Protein backbone atom coordinates (compact mmCIF):
# COMPACT_ATOMS: atom_id res chain seq x y z
CA UNK A 1 0.00 0.00 0.00
CA UNK A 2 1.37 3.39 -0.92
CA UNK A 3 0.42 6.53 0.92
CA UNK A 4 0.29 9.08 -1.84
CA UNK A 5 0.05 12.75 -0.98
CA UNK A 6 -3.39 14.20 -1.70
CA UNK A 7 -3.50 15.98 -5.07
CA UNK A 8 -2.98 19.71 -4.66
CA UNK A 9 -6.23 21.60 -5.12
CA UNK A 10 -6.31 23.81 -8.19
CA UNK A 11 -8.16 27.10 -7.82
CA UNK A 12 -9.68 29.50 -10.26
CA UNK A 13 -10.66 33.09 -9.76
CA UNK A 14 -14.08 34.41 -10.77
CA UNK A 15 -13.87 38.09 -11.63
CA UNK A 16 -16.32 40.72 -12.77
CA UNK A 17 -15.66 44.40 -13.44
CA UNK A 18 -17.79 47.48 -12.87
CA UNK A 19 -16.44 50.26 -15.02
CA UNK A 20 -17.45 53.91 -14.76
CA UNK A 21 -16.73 56.00 -17.83
CA UNK A 22 -17.16 59.72 -17.76
CA UNK A 23 -18.69 61.11 -20.94
CA UNK A 24 -17.07 64.13 -22.58
CA UNK A 25 -20.23 66.15 -23.10
CA UNK A 26 -20.07 69.94 -22.69
CA UNK A 27 -22.69 69.94 -19.99
CA UNK A 28 -23.92 67.80 -17.11
CA UNK A 29 -26.35 64.93 -17.51
CA UNK A 30 -29.41 66.82 -16.27
CA UNK A 31 -28.39 70.50 -16.23
CA UNK A 32 -26.49 72.95 -18.46
CA UNK A 33 -23.42 73.51 -16.20
CA UNK A 34 -19.95 72.69 -17.50
CA UNK A 35 -18.28 69.31 -16.91
CA UNK A 36 -14.74 70.69 -17.10
CA UNK A 37 -12.08 69.05 -14.94
CA UNK A 38 -9.91 70.98 -12.50
CA UNK A 39 -11.96 74.18 -12.17
CA UNK A 40 -12.07 76.12 -8.85
CA UNK A 41 -14.42 74.48 -6.30
CA UNK A 42 -18.16 74.91 -6.77
CA UNK A 43 -17.92 77.09 -9.85
CA UNK A 44 -19.82 74.53 -11.97
CA UNK A 45 -22.91 74.19 -9.80
CA UNK A 46 -26.54 75.04 -10.49
CA UNK A 47 -29.90 74.54 -8.76
CA UNK A 48 -30.60 71.26 -10.64
CA UNK A 49 -27.40 69.38 -9.84
CA UNK A 50 -27.66 70.68 -6.27
CA UNK A 51 -31.20 69.32 -6.02
CA UNK A 52 -32.72 72.59 -4.84
CA UNK A 53 -36.50 72.53 -4.35
CA UNK A 54 -38.60 73.26 -7.41
CA UNK A 55 -35.99 72.32 -9.99
CA UNK A 56 -36.46 69.75 -12.73
CA UNK A 57 -33.73 67.64 -14.32
CA UNK A 58 -33.81 67.24 -18.13
CA UNK A 59 -31.72 64.58 -19.86
CA UNK A 60 -28.84 65.76 -22.05
CA UNK A 61 -29.45 64.34 -25.55
CA UNK A 62 -25.69 63.86 -26.09
CA UNK A 63 -25.53 61.57 -23.03
CA UNK A 64 -28.22 59.35 -24.49
CA UNK A 65 -26.54 59.26 -27.89
CA UNK A 66 -23.10 58.42 -26.47
CA UNK A 67 -24.49 55.72 -24.20
CA UNK A 68 -26.46 54.06 -26.99
CA UNK A 69 -23.39 54.10 -29.24
CA UNK A 70 -21.27 52.56 -26.49
CA UNK A 71 -24.01 49.96 -25.92
CA UNK A 72 -23.95 49.10 -29.63
CA UNK A 73 -20.13 48.91 -29.64
CA UNK A 74 -20.42 46.42 -26.76
CA UNK A 75 -22.87 44.30 -28.78
CA UNK A 76 -25.73 45.07 -26.40
CA UNK A 77 -29.45 45.09 -27.01
CA UNK A 78 -30.65 48.67 -26.74
CA UNK A 79 -33.76 48.90 -24.59
CA UNK A 80 -36.85 49.99 -26.51
CA UNK A 81 -38.11 51.40 -23.20
CA UNK A 82 -35.76 52.63 -20.51
CA UNK A 83 -36.16 54.80 -17.41
CA UNK A 84 -34.30 56.49 -14.59
CA UNK A 85 -34.50 55.63 -10.90
CA UNK A 86 -33.43 57.17 -7.65
CA UNK A 87 -30.76 55.33 -5.70
CA UNK A 88 -30.93 56.55 -2.13
CA UNK A 89 -27.92 56.86 0.07
CA UNK A 90 -26.88 59.49 2.52
CA UNK A 91 -23.37 60.75 2.14
CA UNK A 92 -22.20 64.36 1.80
CA UNK A 93 -20.84 63.91 -1.74
CA UNK A 94 -24.44 63.52 -2.89
CA UNK A 95 -26.33 66.82 -2.66
CA UNK A 96 -29.82 65.35 -3.11
CA UNK A 97 -29.33 62.29 -0.88
CA UNK A 98 -30.10 60.21 -3.94
CA UNK A 99 -28.27 59.57 -7.16
CA UNK A 100 -30.24 59.54 -10.40
CA UNK A 101 -29.30 56.23 -11.99
CA UNK A 102 -30.98 53.37 -13.83
CA UNK A 103 -32.10 50.27 -11.97
CA UNK A 104 -34.28 47.65 -13.66
CA UNK A 105 -34.54 49.09 -17.16
CA UNK A 106 -31.01 50.16 -18.21
CA UNK A 107 -30.44 51.63 -21.65
CA UNK A 108 -28.38 48.61 -22.81
CA UNK A 109 -28.13 44.94 -21.77
CA UNK A 110 -26.94 41.47 -22.80
CA UNK A 111 -23.77 42.40 -24.68
CA UNK A 112 -20.26 41.09 -24.92
CA UNK A 113 -16.74 42.21 -25.59
CA UNK A 114 -14.11 40.11 -27.36
CA UNK A 115 -10.73 40.75 -25.83
CA UNK A 116 -7.36 39.92 -27.35
CA UNK A 117 -4.76 38.35 -25.07
CA UNK A 118 -1.28 38.86 -26.43
CA UNK A 119 1.48 36.41 -25.58
CA UNK A 120 4.84 38.21 -25.58
CA UNK A 121 6.81 34.97 -25.74
CA UNK A 122 5.25 33.65 -28.92
CA UNK A 123 4.03 36.90 -30.47
CA UNK A 124 0.61 35.36 -30.96
CA UNK A 125 -2.83 36.29 -29.67
CA UNK A 126 -5.79 34.39 -28.30
CA UNK A 127 -9.28 35.78 -27.93
CA UNK A 128 -11.90 35.54 -25.23
CA UNK A 129 -15.48 36.70 -25.04
CA UNK A 130 -16.45 38.57 -21.87
CA UNK A 131 -20.18 39.04 -21.32
CA UNK A 132 -21.48 42.55 -20.68
CA UNK A 133 -24.44 42.37 -18.31
CA UNK A 134 -25.58 45.94 -18.71
CA UNK A 135 -24.72 49.55 -19.39
CA UNK A 136 -26.60 52.35 -17.72
CA UNK A 137 -26.52 56.14 -17.47
CA UNK A 138 -26.10 57.93 -14.16
CA UNK A 139 -24.79 61.09 -12.55
CA UNK A 140 -21.48 61.38 -10.73
CA UNK A 141 -21.19 62.62 -7.14
CA UNK A 142 -19.15 65.52 -5.76
CA UNK A 143 -15.68 65.42 -4.24
CA UNK A 144 -14.84 65.53 -0.54
CA UNK A 145 -11.79 67.12 1.03
CA UNK A 146 -11.33 66.00 4.59
CA UNK A 147 -10.41 68.78 7.01
CA UNK A 148 -8.35 68.50 10.16
CA UNK A 149 -6.58 65.36 8.99
CA UNK A 150 -5.26 63.64 5.89
CA UNK A 151 -7.78 60.86 6.09
CA UNK A 152 -11.44 60.60 6.84
CA UNK A 153 -10.81 58.93 10.20
CA UNK A 154 -8.82 61.80 11.66
CA UNK A 155 -10.85 64.67 10.29
CA UNK A 156 -13.21 66.80 12.32
CA UNK A 157 -15.13 68.14 9.30
CA UNK A 158 -15.16 67.80 5.53
CA UNK A 159 -15.30 70.25 2.64
CA UNK A 160 -17.37 69.50 -0.43
CA UNK A 161 -16.83 70.51 -4.04
CA UNK A 162 -19.91 69.73 -6.17
CA UNK A 163 -18.35 70.54 -9.57
CA UNK A 164 -18.41 66.83 -10.42
CA UNK A 165 -21.97 66.32 -9.15
CA UNK A 166 -24.16 65.63 -12.17
CA UNK A 167 -21.29 64.86 -14.54
CA UNK A 168 -22.54 62.11 -16.87
CA UNK A 169 -21.28 58.56 -16.38
CA UNK A 170 -21.85 55.24 -18.09
CA UNK A 171 -21.57 52.29 -15.75
CA UNK A 172 -20.66 49.10 -17.56
CA UNK A 173 -21.05 45.83 -15.66
CA UNK A 174 -19.36 42.68 -16.93
CA UNK A 175 -20.43 39.10 -16.40
CA UNK A 176 -18.16 37.15 -14.02
CA UNK A 177 -16.35 35.68 -17.05
CA UNK A 178 -12.89 37.04 -16.25
CA UNK A 179 -10.36 34.61 -14.74
CA UNK A 180 -7.02 36.43 -14.52
CA UNK A 181 -5.50 39.83 -13.88
CA UNK A 182 -4.32 39.99 -17.48
CA UNK A 183 -7.86 39.40 -18.80
CA UNK A 184 -9.23 42.11 -16.51
CA UNK A 185 -6.60 44.65 -17.55
CA UNK A 186 -7.16 43.83 -21.23
CA UNK A 187 -10.94 44.14 -20.83
CA UNK A 188 -10.59 47.56 -19.19
CA UNK A 189 -8.13 48.71 -21.86
CA UNK A 190 -10.42 47.60 -24.65
CA UNK A 191 -13.28 49.56 -23.05
CA UNK A 192 -11.04 52.61 -23.03
CA UNK A 193 -10.01 52.12 -26.65
CA UNK A 194 -13.67 51.91 -27.67
CA UNK A 195 -14.60 55.01 -25.65
CA UNK A 196 -11.81 56.90 -27.41
CA UNK A 197 -12.60 55.53 -30.88
CA UNK A 198 -16.24 56.54 -30.45
CA UNK A 199 -15.07 59.91 -29.17
CA UNK A 200 -17.50 59.77 -26.23
CA UNK A 201 -14.92 60.15 -23.44
CA UNK A 202 -11.22 60.56 -22.75
CA UNK A 203 -10.80 57.46 -20.54
CA UNK A 204 -8.20 59.18 -18.40
CA UNK A 205 -7.65 57.02 -15.30
CA UNK A 206 -5.53 59.60 -13.47
CA UNK A 207 -8.30 62.19 -13.62
CA UNK A 208 -10.87 59.55 -12.72
CA UNK A 209 -12.74 59.61 -16.03
CA UNK A 210 -12.28 55.84 -16.17
CA UNK A 211 -12.71 53.95 -12.89
CA UNK A 212 -12.79 50.20 -12.40
CA UNK A 213 -14.08 48.28 -9.42
CA UNK A 214 -13.28 44.59 -9.32
CA UNK A 215 -15.44 41.83 -7.82
CA UNK A 216 -13.41 38.72 -7.17
CA UNK A 217 -13.69 35.33 -5.50
CA UNK A 218 -11.82 32.05 -5.77
CA UNK A 219 -13.08 28.46 -5.87
CA UNK A 220 -11.61 25.04 -6.50
CA UNK A 221 -11.69 24.22 -10.21
CA UNK A 222 -14.83 22.22 -10.93
CA UNK A 223 -16.87 23.72 -8.11
CA UNK A 224 -20.06 25.37 -9.30
CA UNK A 225 -20.80 27.68 -6.38
CA UNK A 226 -18.96 30.96 -6.12
CA UNK A 227 -16.61 31.64 -3.22
CA UNK A 228 -16.98 34.68 -0.95
CA UNK A 229 -16.91 37.81 -3.06
CA UNK A 230 -14.58 40.70 -2.31
CA UNK A 231 -14.71 44.09 -4.00
CA UNK A 232 -11.44 45.91 -4.75
CA UNK A 233 -11.27 49.63 -5.48
CA UNK A 234 -8.69 52.36 -5.93
CA UNK A 235 -6.68 51.11 -8.91
CA UNK A 236 -5.63 53.99 -11.11
CA UNK A 237 -3.84 52.21 -13.91
CA UNK A 238 -4.35 49.06 -15.95
CA UNK A 239 -1.27 47.44 -14.47
CA UNK A 240 -2.61 48.26 -10.99
CA UNK A 241 -5.82 46.38 -11.88
CA UNK A 242 -3.75 43.37 -12.91
CA UNK A 243 -1.48 43.46 -9.86
CA UNK A 244 -4.35 44.02 -7.41
CA UNK A 245 -6.13 40.97 -8.81
CA UNK A 246 -3.02 38.82 -8.75
CA UNK A 247 -2.38 39.82 -5.14
CA UNK A 248 -5.99 39.18 -4.17
CA UNK A 249 -6.09 35.73 -5.81
CA UNK A 250 -3.06 34.67 -3.81
CA UNK A 251 -4.44 36.14 -0.60
CA UNK A 252 -7.78 34.40 -1.01
CA UNK A 253 -6.29 31.02 -1.92
CA UNK A 254 -3.93 31.22 1.08
CA UNK A 255 -6.88 31.98 3.36
CA UNK A 256 -8.94 29.09 1.99
CA UNK A 257 -5.99 26.69 2.28
CA UNK A 258 -5.41 27.80 5.88
CA UNK A 259 -9.07 27.11 6.65
CA UNK A 260 -9.83 30.78 7.32
CA UNK A 261 -13.24 32.13 6.51
CA UNK A 262 -13.21 34.92 3.93
CA UNK A 263 -15.51 37.84 4.64
CA UNK A 264 -17.51 39.75 2.10
CA UNK A 265 -15.92 43.17 2.15
CA UNK A 266 -14.53 46.10 0.20
CA UNK A 267 -10.75 46.31 -0.03
CA UNK A 268 -8.53 49.12 -1.25
CA UNK A 269 -5.50 48.61 -3.47
CA UNK A 270 -2.48 50.30 -1.91
CA UNK A 271 -0.02 51.26 -4.63
CA UNK A 272 2.79 51.92 -2.16
CA UNK A 273 2.78 48.53 -0.45
CA UNK A 274 1.39 46.65 -3.49
CA UNK A 275 -1.36 44.98 -1.48
CA UNK A 276 -5.05 45.24 -0.74
CA UNK A 277 -6.30 46.38 2.66
CA UNK A 278 -9.73 45.98 4.22
CA UNK A 279 -11.86 49.11 3.98
CA UNK A 280 -15.25 48.04 5.24
CA UNK A 281 -17.30 44.97 5.89
CA UNK A 282 -20.58 44.64 4.05
CA UNK A 283 -23.56 44.09 6.32
CA UNK A 284 -25.78 42.12 4.02
CA UNK A 285 -27.10 43.63 0.83
CA UNK A 286 -27.04 47.40 0.50
CA UNK A 287 -30.42 49.00 0.91
CA UNK A 288 -30.67 51.70 -1.72
CA UNK A 289 -34.48 51.73 -1.85
CA UNK A 290 -34.59 52.37 -5.59
CA UNK A 291 -37.75 53.84 -7.00
CA UNK A 292 -38.61 55.37 -10.38
CA UNK A 293 -37.44 58.96 -10.81
CA UNK A 294 -40.71 60.89 -11.10
CA UNK A 295 -39.04 64.00 -12.55
CA UNK A 296 -37.76 62.31 -15.71
CA UNK A 297 -39.83 60.71 -18.45
CA UNK A 298 -38.96 57.34 -19.96
CA UNK A 299 -36.66 56.93 -22.94
CA UNK A 300 -37.94 55.15 -26.03
CA UNK A 301 -35.23 54.87 -28.68
CA UNK A 302 -36.98 54.47 -32.03
CA UNK A 303 -35.78 51.97 -34.62
CA UNK A 304 -34.94 54.83 -37.01
CA UNK A 305 -32.90 56.67 -34.39
CA UNK A 306 -31.09 53.47 -33.47
CA UNK A 307 -30.26 52.73 -37.11
CA UNK A 308 -28.94 56.26 -37.55
CA UNK A 309 -26.66 56.00 -34.51
CA UNK A 310 -25.51 52.54 -35.54
CA UNK A 311 -24.53 53.87 -38.96
CA UNK A 312 -22.31 56.45 -37.28
CA UNK A 313 -20.17 53.86 -35.47
CA UNK A 314 -16.55 53.90 -36.63
CA UNK A 315 -14.47 50.80 -37.29
CA UNK A 316 -13.70 49.55 -33.78
CA UNK A 317 -10.27 48.53 -32.40
CA UNK A 318 -10.92 44.77 -32.67
CA UNK A 319 -12.02 45.11 -36.29
CA UNK A 320 -8.95 47.20 -37.06
CA UNK A 321 -6.57 44.70 -35.46
CA UNK A 322 -8.17 41.98 -37.54
CA UNK A 323 -7.94 44.00 -40.76
CA UNK A 324 -4.35 45.12 -40.13
CA UNK A 325 -3.15 41.53 -39.78
CA UNK A 326 -5.22 39.88 -42.50
CA UNK A 327 -5.48 42.62 -45.14
CA UNK A 328 -2.36 44.69 -44.50
CA UNK A 329 -0.13 41.77 -43.53
CA UNK A 330 1.09 43.33 -40.29
CA UNK A 331 2.15 41.25 -37.29
CA UNK A 332 -0.19 40.83 -34.32
CA UNK A 333 2.16 43.01 -32.30
CA UNK A 334 2.28 45.83 -34.88
CA UNK A 335 -1.51 45.79 -35.23
CA UNK A 336 -1.88 46.07 -31.45
CA UNK A 337 0.54 48.96 -31.10
CA UNK A 338 -0.87 50.93 -34.01
CA UNK A 339 -4.50 50.56 -32.93
CA UNK A 340 -3.92 51.05 -29.21
CA UNK A 341 -4.01 54.81 -29.43
CA UNK A 342 -6.55 56.57 -31.65
CA UNK A 343 -4.18 59.35 -32.76
CA UNK A 344 -1.53 56.81 -33.82
CA UNK A 345 -4.12 54.75 -35.67
CA UNK A 346 -5.41 57.81 -37.51
CA UNK A 347 -1.86 58.87 -38.41
CA UNK A 348 -1.07 55.41 -39.75
CA UNK A 349 -4.26 55.25 -41.80
CA UNK A 350 -3.69 58.73 -43.23
CA UNK A 351 -0.15 57.71 -44.24
CA UNK A 352 -1.29 54.60 -46.10
CA UNK A 353 -4.17 56.53 -47.64
CA UNK A 354 -1.49 58.89 -49.00
CA UNK A 355 0.19 55.92 -50.66
CA UNK A 356 2.70 54.62 -48.11
CA UNK A 357 3.22 50.88 -47.87
CA UNK A 358 1.63 49.58 -44.66
CA UNK A 359 4.68 47.73 -43.42
CA UNK A 360 7.08 50.65 -43.99
CA UNK A 361 4.62 53.16 -42.50
CA UNK A 362 4.24 50.89 -39.46
CA UNK A 363 8.02 50.66 -39.07
CA UNK A 364 8.59 54.40 -39.25
CA UNK A 365 5.67 55.25 -36.96
CA UNK A 366 6.54 52.63 -34.33
CA UNK A 367 10.26 53.32 -34.65
CA UNK A 368 11.58 56.82 -35.31
CA UNK A 369 8.30 58.71 -34.81
CA UNK A 370 7.45 57.02 -31.50
CA UNK A 371 11.00 57.50 -30.27
CA UNK A 372 10.78 61.19 -31.10
CA UNK A 373 7.45 61.49 -29.25
CA UNK A 374 8.91 59.66 -26.25
CA UNK A 375 11.58 62.34 -26.06
CA UNK A 376 9.09 65.15 -26.57
CA UNK A 377 6.27 64.24 -24.23
CA UNK A 378 4.42 67.52 -24.79
CA UNK A 379 3.74 66.40 -28.38
CA UNK A 380 1.30 63.77 -29.59
CA UNK A 381 1.04 61.96 -32.90
CA UNK A 382 -1.74 64.31 -33.95
CA UNK A 383 0.29 67.50 -33.67
CA UNK A 384 3.64 66.41 -35.11
CA UNK A 385 4.94 68.93 -37.66
CA UNK A 386 5.58 65.91 -39.89
CA UNK A 387 2.21 65.19 -41.45
CA UNK A 388 1.16 61.70 -42.60
CA UNK A 389 1.21 62.62 -46.30
CA UNK A 390 4.76 63.86 -45.96
CA UNK A 391 5.79 60.61 -44.27
CA UNK A 392 4.17 58.76 -47.16
CA UNK A 393 6.21 60.90 -49.56
CA UNK A 394 9.41 60.08 -47.68
CA UNK A 395 8.62 56.36 -47.76
CA UNK A 396 7.90 56.66 -51.49
CA UNK A 397 11.34 58.18 -52.07
CA UNK A 398 12.99 55.23 -50.31
CA UNK A 399 10.90 52.71 -52.21
CA UNK A 400 11.71 54.12 -55.63
CA UNK A 401 15.34 54.37 -54.52
CA UNK A 402 15.57 58.13 -54.95
CA UNK A 403 17.19 58.30 -51.52
CA UNK A 404 18.91 55.78 -49.26
CA UNK A 405 17.61 54.78 -45.87
CA UNK A 406 20.44 56.71 -44.26
CA UNK A 407 19.52 59.86 -46.17
CA UNK A 408 15.88 59.36 -45.18
CA UNK A 409 16.83 59.26 -41.50
CA UNK A 410 18.63 62.58 -41.88
CA UNK A 411 15.70 64.22 -43.65
CA UNK A 412 13.37 62.86 -41.00
CA UNK A 413 14.99 64.97 -38.29
CA UNK A 414 14.15 68.15 -40.16
CA UNK A 415 10.65 66.93 -41.02
CA UNK A 416 9.93 65.99 -37.39
CA UNK A 417 10.87 69.42 -36.07
CA UNK A 418 9.87 71.70 -38.92
CA UNK A 419 7.55 69.73 -41.14
CA UNK A 420 7.50 70.41 -44.87
CA UNK A 421 7.89 68.19 -47.89
CA UNK A 422 10.39 65.36 -48.13
CA UNK A 423 10.72 65.85 -51.89
CA UNK A 424 11.49 69.54 -51.47
CA UNK A 425 14.28 68.82 -48.97
CA UNK A 426 15.82 66.17 -51.24
CA UNK A 427 15.82 68.67 -54.11
CA UNK A 428 17.12 71.55 -51.99
CA UNK A 429 20.01 69.57 -50.52
CA UNK A 430 20.73 67.49 -53.61
CA UNK A 431 20.23 64.30 -51.63
CA UNK A 432 18.94 62.21 -54.50
CA UNK A 433 20.54 58.80 -54.68
CA UNK A 434 22.92 58.19 -57.60
CA UNK A 435 21.63 55.14 -59.46
CA UNK A 436 23.13 56.10 -62.78
CA UNK A 437 25.60 53.37 -63.77
CA UNK A 438 27.81 55.71 -65.79
CA UNK A 439 28.16 58.23 -62.98
CA UNK A 440 28.93 55.51 -60.47
CA UNK A 441 31.52 53.86 -62.71
CA UNK A 442 33.33 57.17 -63.09
CA UNK A 443 33.47 57.51 -59.30
CA UNK A 444 34.65 53.90 -58.92
CA UNK A 445 37.41 54.38 -61.50
CA UNK A 446 38.65 57.41 -59.60
CA UNK A 447 38.65 55.49 -56.33
CA UNK A 448 40.66 52.63 -57.86
CA UNK A 449 43.27 55.08 -59.21
CA UNK A 450 43.51 56.88 -55.86
CA UNK A 451 44.10 53.64 -53.93
CA UNK A 452 46.65 51.57 -55.86
CA UNK A 453 48.02 49.82 -52.77
CA UNK A 454 44.65 48.47 -51.69
CA UNK A 455 43.87 47.51 -55.27
CA UNK A 456 47.04 45.44 -55.40
CA UNK A 457 46.27 43.76 -52.07
CA UNK A 458 42.73 42.96 -53.25
CA UNK A 459 43.94 41.39 -56.44
CA UNK A 460 46.47 39.50 -54.33
CA UNK A 461 43.60 37.75 -52.57
CA UNK A 462 42.55 40.13 -49.79
CA UNK A 463 38.94 40.21 -50.99
CA UNK A 464 37.74 41.63 -47.68
CA UNK A 465 38.79 45.02 -49.09
CA UNK A 466 35.62 45.15 -51.21
CA UNK A 467 33.94 46.99 -48.34
CA UNK A 468 36.76 49.51 -48.25
CA UNK A 469 36.26 50.43 -51.90
CA UNK A 470 32.48 50.68 -51.54
CA UNK A 471 33.06 52.96 -48.55
CA UNK A 472 35.36 55.18 -50.58
CA UNK A 473 32.75 55.49 -53.34
CA UNK A 474 30.16 56.43 -50.73
CA UNK A 475 32.50 59.05 -49.32
CA UNK A 476 33.18 60.47 -52.76
CA UNK A 477 29.44 60.76 -53.54
CA UNK A 478 28.48 62.22 -50.18
CA UNK A 479 26.63 59.04 -49.25
CA UNK A 480 24.36 59.33 -52.26
CA UNK A 481 25.55 56.32 -54.22
CA UNK A 482 22.93 53.57 -54.46
CA UNK A 483 24.52 51.02 -52.07
CA UNK A 484 23.29 47.87 -53.80
CA UNK A 485 24.27 48.99 -57.28
CA UNK A 486 27.62 50.33 -56.05
CA UNK A 487 28.43 46.97 -54.49
CA UNK A 488 27.73 45.19 -57.74
CA UNK A 489 29.70 47.63 -59.85
CA UNK A 490 32.74 47.74 -57.54
CA UNK A 491 32.83 43.97 -57.40
CA UNK A 492 32.64 43.77 -61.18
CA UNK A 493 35.45 46.30 -61.68
CA UNK A 494 37.73 44.65 -59.14
CA UNK A 495 37.28 41.18 -60.54
CA UNK A 496 37.01 42.23 -64.17
Amino acid at each position, binding site marked *: MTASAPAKTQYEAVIGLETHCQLNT*NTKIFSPSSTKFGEPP*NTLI*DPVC*MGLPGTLPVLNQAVLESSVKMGLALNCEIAPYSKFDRKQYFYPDLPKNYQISQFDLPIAEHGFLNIELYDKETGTATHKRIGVTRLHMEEDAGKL*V*HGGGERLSGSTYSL*VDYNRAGVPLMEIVSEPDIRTGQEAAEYAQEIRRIVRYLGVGDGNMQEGSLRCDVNISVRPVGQKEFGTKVEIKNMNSFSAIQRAIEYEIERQIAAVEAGEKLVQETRLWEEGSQRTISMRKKEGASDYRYFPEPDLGPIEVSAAQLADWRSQLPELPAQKRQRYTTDLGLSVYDARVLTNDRATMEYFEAAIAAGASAKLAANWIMGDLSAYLNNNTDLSMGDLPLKPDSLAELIGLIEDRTISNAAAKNILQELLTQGGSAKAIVKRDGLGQISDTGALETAIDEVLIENPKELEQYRGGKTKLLGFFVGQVMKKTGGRADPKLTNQLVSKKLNG
Partner: protein
Amino acid sequence: MIDREQVRKVAHLARLELSTAEEEMFTTQLNGILDYFEQLSELDVTNVEPTFRAIDASNITRQDVLETHSDREAILESAPDRDGEFFKVPQIIATD
Protein backbone atom coordinates in the same frame (compact mmCIF):
# COMPACT_ATOMS: atom_id res chain seq x y z
CA MET B 1 -48.51 49.17 9.25
CA ILE B 2 -45.05 50.39 10.06
CA ASP B 3 -43.39 49.41 13.34
CA ARG B 4 -40.71 50.95 15.55
CA GLU B 5 -38.05 48.66 14.06
CA GLN B 6 -38.71 49.94 10.54
CA VAL B 7 -38.63 53.53 11.71
CA ARG B 8 -35.25 52.86 13.32
CA LYS B 9 -33.94 51.26 10.12
CA VAL B 10 -35.06 54.10 7.88
CA ALA B 11 -33.62 56.61 10.33
CA HIS B 12 -30.31 54.74 10.24
CA LEU B 13 -30.27 54.73 6.42
CA ALA B 14 -30.96 58.46 6.42
CA ARG B 15 -28.26 58.99 9.08
CA LEU B 16 -30.79 60.43 11.51
CA GLU B 17 -30.45 60.02 15.25
CA LEU B 18 -33.86 59.77 16.89
CA SER B 19 -34.71 59.84 20.57
CA THR B 20 -37.12 57.22 21.95
CA ALA B 21 -39.85 59.86 22.06
CA GLU B 22 -39.18 60.80 18.42
CA GLU B 23 -39.27 57.16 17.32
CA GLU B 24 -42.65 56.86 19.01
CA MET B 25 -43.92 60.08 17.45
CA PHE B 26 -42.72 59.22 13.91
CA THR B 27 -44.14 55.70 14.11
CA THR B 28 -47.54 57.20 14.94
CA GLN B 29 -47.31 59.95 12.30
CA LEU B 30 -46.05 57.66 9.52
CA ASN B 31 -48.84 55.18 10.29
CA GLY B 32 -51.34 58.03 10.06
CA ILE B 33 -50.06 58.88 6.59
CA LEU B 34 -50.02 55.26 5.48
CA ASP B 35 -53.55 54.73 6.80
CA TYR B 36 -54.71 57.69 4.77
CA PHE B 37 -53.17 56.25 1.58
CA GLU B 38 -54.64 52.88 2.49
CA GLN B 39 -57.99 54.21 1.28
CA LEU B 40 -56.65 53.71 -2.25
CA SER B 41 -56.70 49.97 -1.67
CA GLU B 42 -60.46 50.08 -1.87
CA LEU B 43 -60.11 50.47 -5.63
CA ASP B 44 -59.83 47.42 -7.84
CA VAL B 45 -56.68 47.91 -9.95
CA THR B 46 -56.31 44.32 -11.12
CA ASN B 47 -56.07 45.26 -14.78
CA VAL B 48 -54.36 48.63 -14.42
CA GLU B 49 -50.65 49.05 -15.26
CA PRO B 50 -48.64 50.84 -12.55
CA THR B 51 -48.38 54.57 -13.17
CA PHE B 52 -45.08 56.27 -12.37
CA ARG B 53 -45.87 59.70 -13.75
CA ALA B 54 -48.89 61.94 -14.02
CA ILE B 55 -47.86 63.08 -17.52
CA ASP B 56 -46.90 60.34 -19.91
CA ALA B 57 -44.29 61.94 -22.15
CA SER B 58 -41.24 60.06 -23.48
CA ASN B 59 -37.91 61.29 -24.81
CA ILE B 60 -37.83 64.71 -23.24
CA THR B 61 -34.22 65.81 -23.71
CA ARG B 62 -32.21 69.01 -24.00
CA GLN B 63 -29.37 69.92 -26.35
CA ASP B 64 -25.85 69.79 -24.94
CA VAL B 65 -25.49 73.57 -24.73
CA LEU B 66 -23.52 75.21 -21.96
CA GLU B 67 -25.17 77.76 -19.69
CA THR B 68 -23.33 78.85 -16.58
CA HIS B 69 -25.55 79.44 -13.59
CA SER B 70 -25.42 83.11 -12.69
CA ASP B 71 -25.73 82.93 -8.92
CA ARG B 72 -23.31 80.41 -7.52
CA GLU B 73 -22.89 82.60 -4.44
CA ALA B 74 -26.58 82.27 -3.53
CA ILE B 75 -26.30 78.46 -3.64
CA LEU B 76 -23.19 78.47 -1.44
CA GLU B 77 -24.81 80.97 0.91
CA SER B 78 -28.00 78.90 1.31
CA ALA B 79 -26.07 75.95 2.76
CA PRO B 80 -25.99 75.54 6.55
CA ASP B 81 -22.22 76.07 6.58
CA ARG B 82 -19.45 77.01 4.14
CA ASP B 83 -15.71 77.51 4.17
CA GLY B 84 -14.74 79.95 1.45
CA GLU B 85 -15.77 78.41 -1.84
CA PHE B 86 -16.42 75.00 -0.28
CA PHE B 87 -19.51 73.64 1.40
CA LYS B 88 -18.62 72.53 4.91
CA VAL B 89 -20.15 69.45 6.48
CA PRO B 90 -19.79 67.94 9.94
CA GLN B 91 -17.48 65.03 10.66
CA ILE B 92 -18.42 61.98 8.58
CA ILE B 93 -18.67 58.94 10.80
CA ALA B 94 -19.75 56.09 8.57
CA THR B 95 -18.40 55.26 5.15
CA ASP B 96 -21.10 52.99 3.76
